């Protein structure tokens, strides 16, 4: 308790508080801009923070980390250009809302859901990190295989015209995920000799292309002299009714996001996508999904921000970073003389509580900024299309270029833009494609790793993994139960009428 109060005291220090506010504002900005991620920013800031007090510098980096994840949703909602891959699920529903003239509603919900998810995960981190971090050890390749298949199992239901089309898009995504050097054999696949493809298809370029450039080409169809309609509702922010509706999605997203975040091999993007799937699965308003569902914004936003606190669990308790961002924060910790590991929680509680306090503060701050600025940001959706979309293209170019500073990625973005446009015309949705792309390499890699680990007896090997078996069973149930229920309902109904 003493340590807790000592840690919280950081919030009373004006300089530390100033750094937290600065970190939050910087985080929101870079998160919103495609091409600069939280990790790039933190890497850039790391040397600067070395001169500061360890607690203050960690508070600064931690608040950038928290806020950047929220920032990604702003551009995703307003111009369909996810500032960060983890906001792609938000773009699916949030942009549809903005198109309908509900940008402020989507932005406000994103801020609230993000903050709840973020705070939930930070609380979990501080209460149970050493315990939960053990989960990371229980997850080997077989478990990740089962989890990735679980994530993919819902893709038939998400997105476009028909289940077949969704499956085609998802399978195509998995095929795209095989591009690059194969992890387990070192063989180059589908790279056609381009360096930019050896590490696989760049997520950022693919997402920006599919969403923003595809949307621009689609918008062009409606342009040419056509006046743009002003969206009068754009600045309305969500009220009590909306929050009541999204309550369940937010909590579901928070729990899923925290759990996925704890697993070092999966990050905020996977958390958001799985959060999106599950939000839809448990929603009472399934029909709204794909047409601008506010629950579809709340669930994934809660999940990707919950993955932030979740991601800190293995970083602090095991010294194992799950993402580029936590890797840099870990380096910052180590250089400052902090030794991550299970003992950290007993040895340096003051520092730990300070990180905790600053992350909490950052979550509350971006909630305030996000809600306060939602009306302002929402006005961006009122900019005439002829000015807005060309600017979005320019931003997309720099965004695709920025991730690896390569022109190859800009070409890739353009190719995905054309694909995105073709998708819109033919009744496909980018959602399943992205799920395939994000989870596909994990399916292949963990399958191959499992085969190597199990050696000759692969089936026996899987049988010996209870967690994997349970996940496989849940996946199977999720796939089989709804159709069976529907079938029995159909059987029962005519009988009831006869009687």
């Amino acid at each position: 308790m003493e340590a807790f109060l000592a840690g919280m005291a950081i919030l009373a220090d004006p300089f530390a508080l100033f750094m937290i506010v600065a970190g939050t504002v910087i985080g929101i900005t870079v998160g919103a801009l495609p091409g600069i991620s939280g990790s790039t920013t933190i890497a850039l800031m790391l040397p600067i923070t070395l001169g500061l007090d360890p607690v203050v510098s960690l508070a600064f980096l931690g608040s950038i980390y928290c806020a950047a994840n929220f920032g990604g949703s702003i551009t995703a909602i307003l111009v369909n250009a996810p500032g960060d891959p983890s906001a792609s699920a938000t773009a699916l529903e949030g942009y549809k809302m903005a198109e309908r003239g509900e940008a402020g509603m989507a932005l406000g919900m994103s801020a609230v859901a993000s903050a709840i998810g973020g705070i939930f995960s930070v609380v979990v981190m501080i209460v149970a990190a050493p315990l939960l971090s053990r989960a990371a050890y229980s997850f080997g390749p077989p478990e990740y295989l089962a989890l990735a298949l679980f994530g993919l199992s819902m893709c038939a239901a998400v997105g476009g015209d028909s289940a077949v089309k969704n499956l085609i898009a998802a399978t195509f995504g998995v095929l795209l995920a095989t591009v690059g050097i194969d992890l387990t054999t070192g063989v180059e696949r589908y790279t056609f000799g381009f360096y930019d493809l050896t590490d696989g298809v760049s997520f950022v370029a693919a997402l920006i292309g599919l969403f923003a450039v595809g949307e621009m080409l689609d918008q062009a169809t409606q342009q040419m002299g056509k006046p743009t309609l002003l969206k009068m509702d754009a600045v309305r922010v969500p009220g009590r009714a909306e929050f009541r509706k999204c309550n369940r999605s937010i909590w579901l997203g928070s729990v899923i996001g925290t759990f996925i975040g704890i697993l070092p091999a999966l990050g905020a993007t996977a958390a958001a996508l799985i959060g999106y799937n599950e939000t839809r699965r448990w929603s009472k308003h399934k029909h709204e999904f794909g047409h601008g569902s506010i629950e579809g914004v709340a669930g994934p936003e809660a999940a990707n921000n919950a993955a932030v606190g979740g991601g800190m669990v293995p970083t602090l308790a095991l010294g194992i970073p799950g993402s580029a961002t936590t890797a840099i924060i870990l380096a910052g910790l180590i250089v400052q003389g902090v030794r991550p590991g299970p003992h950290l929680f007993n040895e340096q509680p003051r520092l730990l509580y300070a990180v905790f306090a600053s992350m909490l503060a950052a979550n509350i701050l971006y909630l305030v900024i996000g809600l306060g600025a939602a009306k302002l940001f929402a006005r961006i959706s009122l900019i005439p299309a002829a000015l807005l979309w060309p600017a979005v293209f320019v931003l997309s170019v720099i965004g695709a270029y920025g991730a690896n500073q390569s022109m190859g990625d800009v070409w890739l973005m353009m190719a995905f833009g054309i694909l995105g446009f073709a998708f819109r015309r033919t009744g496909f949705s980018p959602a399943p494609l992205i799920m395939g792309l994000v989870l596909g390499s994990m399916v292949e890699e963990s399958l191959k790793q499992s085969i190597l680990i199990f050696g000759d007896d692969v089936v026996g090997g899987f049988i010996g993994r209870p967690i994997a078996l349970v996940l496989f069973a849940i996946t199977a149930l999720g796939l089989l139960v709804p159709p069976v229920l529907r079938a029995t309902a159909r059987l029962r109904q005519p009988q009831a009428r006869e009687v």
Partner: protein
Amino acid sequence: MQEGNQVCRPAEARGAAAWHRRSVLLGAAGFGLLGAPSILRAQAAFGSRPIEVVTHAGVGGGTDITARMTAVDAAAALGTEIVVVNKTGGSGAAALAYAAQRPKDGHTVLLLTQTHLLTMLRSRTGTQMEDLVAIARATEDPQVVMVRADSPLRSADELASIGKERSLRFGITHVGSVDHVATVGFAKAAGIRPPTAVPFRGGGDIVVNLVGGNIDVGLLNFAEGEAQLRAGEVRPLMVLSRERMTSLPEAPTARELRIDFVSATTRGYAVMKGVPEDRIARLEEGMLKGLRGPTFSNYLKTSGQALDSVAGRAEWQAQLEAFSNEGRQALADLGVAR
């Protein structure tokens, strides 16, 4: 609403135009000020531009952090800014290609690892070892042979005896990578059966799977397994350095156990051949000052690396050439050389 909007347009447009004319003038003046000096100094004087440190690693890895930690004090010593440029892709091929096309005026420095050497050996085209000039070595992080705390491989002898019965599962990062070459070399030196190499995305994944019992052995840097070593979940069997590590004083070296094998994750700076000699000397001096400065020294200490990791041009050049020769042999053994 739409009509209202139309009506107010002209006034708006006029205002905007007037404002715009001013901004164009300002902008032109601004660009003129910025542009002119650069045009005049087409062959940039040393230190007139930021120095780019090109790394093949993505943001956040050990290599990237090495670059950023060096930059803090080196920038002051060289009197110019240092920018880290991450050119990922092709296991260093993209970074090498980028460096090759930049002007050879000393403003582009490569952060070289063994990965680049293996990539060069495998490609046969593009930049080769002969096209590079060493500047300074930054880190030499010995690899440690680690097993799970309750592993049946309690000692080097047991590793040898069990390893002769069945092929052990070693965690590596990527096929044909430095780890992989080291794993194969170690198995050969230790006289055990060729191991099953299970590739993972990074050192963190290897540690997790080592503790989780999915693999038998991991060749890891001290820092990668530090938390688990301290928690007693992972044990070091031996270190693959010439002398015992100060951070792991009890762990014997492989050589003490009569396994003649040494392996370390080594990183250092280099430039393309063609940079004027005086600039190479300036760079060496500046980089060494950066590497021996408080920030980088502290980084070495806190990540369990020896301060003598930092070395000058001559030593680093010799080491690079030795690596290149060993790597050629190792890749031929693996059957991945072209």
